């Protein structure tokens, strides 16, 4: 009897061990980035398209202050409160000592350089699709931004969500690098797909989630309950959003709808970023949105 117990415990240990091995934090492969030359201007565009400032600038920061990535915005969730960390170029309190490979590990695999899992509140499930060249350019742009010595605050997350190890399982289920919308897309639509699926993380708000917090990909961009309370995050599928491509591009530029209402809620923060893209990129997003599956199929 006693022996059985020991065997069972040993088996359990092996299974858990194997699970932890399969789900252990991955670092980026340096070979993928080698030889790429950063382009700071391109890195700035990636920064805006990916909306890093929306989370990592100081709470309430406006204008130029949005380029000081001192962190501190608080995100309250049912699991506790996450606080965006300092990712300024400060080597002690920010990520000033990170290499492009370190940044790639965070963006593609949700892993820190010392092999900890990040919470998916950091939208790496989108950034996993970021092109290597864009990672290298983004890294250079981030390093060109001001250093700030505000220490990162610790998350206020209770048991069991404070166990980062468990996030390996979440990644195994939901971290996918392929495109969500496949099939025949024009060059412009492919550019739009990259901007939406990889950088803009539009799906993080506009797609409903399952009970484990994973996106329901069969309802891609079809709208979702507003987790913050009343109202709904609107659907963007062609049968839900009947705006012309020019109308969508205008909304992403000035925030004005075709009825000249203006964007509100969390979308207003998104428009601050899309306003900084080129007209061509805003139109690319619009043309991609016309190519996503209908909500009724």
């Amino acid at each position, binding site marked *: 009897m006693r022996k059985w117990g020991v065997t069972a415990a040993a088996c359990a240990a092996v299974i858990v061990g194997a699970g932890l091995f399969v789900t252990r934090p991955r670092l980026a492969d340096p070979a993928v980035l080698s030889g790429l030359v950063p382009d700071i201007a391109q890195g700035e565009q990636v920064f805006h398209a990916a909306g890093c400032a929306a989370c990592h600038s100081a709470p309430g920061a406006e204008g130029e202050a949005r380029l000081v990535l001192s962190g501190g915005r608080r995100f*309250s969730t049912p699991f506790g409160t996450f606080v965006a960390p300092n990712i300024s170029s400060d080597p002690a309190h920010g990520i000033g000592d990170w290499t492009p490979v370190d940044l790639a590990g965070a963006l593609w695999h949700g892993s820190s350089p010392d092999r900890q899992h990040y919470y998916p509140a950091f939208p790496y499930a989108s950034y996993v699709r970021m092109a290597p060249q864009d990672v290298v350019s983004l890294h250079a742009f981030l390093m060109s931004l001001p250093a700030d010595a505000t220490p990162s605050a610790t998350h206020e997350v209770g048991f*069991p969500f404070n166990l980062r190890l468990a996030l390996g399982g979440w990644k195994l289920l939901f971290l996918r690098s392929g495109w969500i919308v496949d099939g025949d897309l024009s060059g412009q639509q492919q550019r739009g797909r990259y901007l939406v699926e990889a950088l803009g993380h539009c799906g*993080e708000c506009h797609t409903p989630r399952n009970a484990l*917090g994973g996106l329901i990909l069969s309802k891609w961009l079809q709208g979702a309950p507003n987790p913050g309370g*009343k*109202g709904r995050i609107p659907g963007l599928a062609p049968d839900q959003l009947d705006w012309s491509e020019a109308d969508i591009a205008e909304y992403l530029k000035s*925030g004005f709808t075709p009825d*000249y209402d203006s964007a509100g809620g*969390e979308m207003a923060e998104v428009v601050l970023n899309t306003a900084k893209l080129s007209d061509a990129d805003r139109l690319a997003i619009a043309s991609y949105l016309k190519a996503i599956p209908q909500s009724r199929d």
Partner: protein
Amino acid sequence: MTKYLSFAAAGLLTVAIVGTSMAQEAKNPAVKARQSLMSLYAFNIGQLGAMAKGEAEYNAEAAAAAASNLATLTQVDQSAMWPAGTDNAADPSSRALPAIWQNFPDVSAKGQALAEAAVAMQAAAGQDLDALKAAMGPLGGACSACHKAYRAPKE
């Protein structure tokens, strides 16, 4: 930004069943008044926006008139339009968040910022199409800054 993250974190999650009440016609006259004022903003910006988008031909006089209407509308004293107890928790026909009543100084600062953007548009609209186009972004930004903090999305 803070809210959708509640769903973006890992772990078990109970999905709240959100009521699907449709938007209603406002009954409270104050709610009706402020929504109407917002609609008047939108109507006048629509005149300018149609020119900016190339849907209507640029007409300096018409543009100046719309911009001047807008600037006038931003001067309207709204103090009676936001009585306590008319937030979206109390009145289902309203999308005004309760935070408005906790941050009046900030709300009026955002109203003031809109008035300034409207004055800038007034200076630009009658000048030429490029000036008009350039003033659209800051104007939209002024509307959105308040909608970001103080207005819930539609049902």
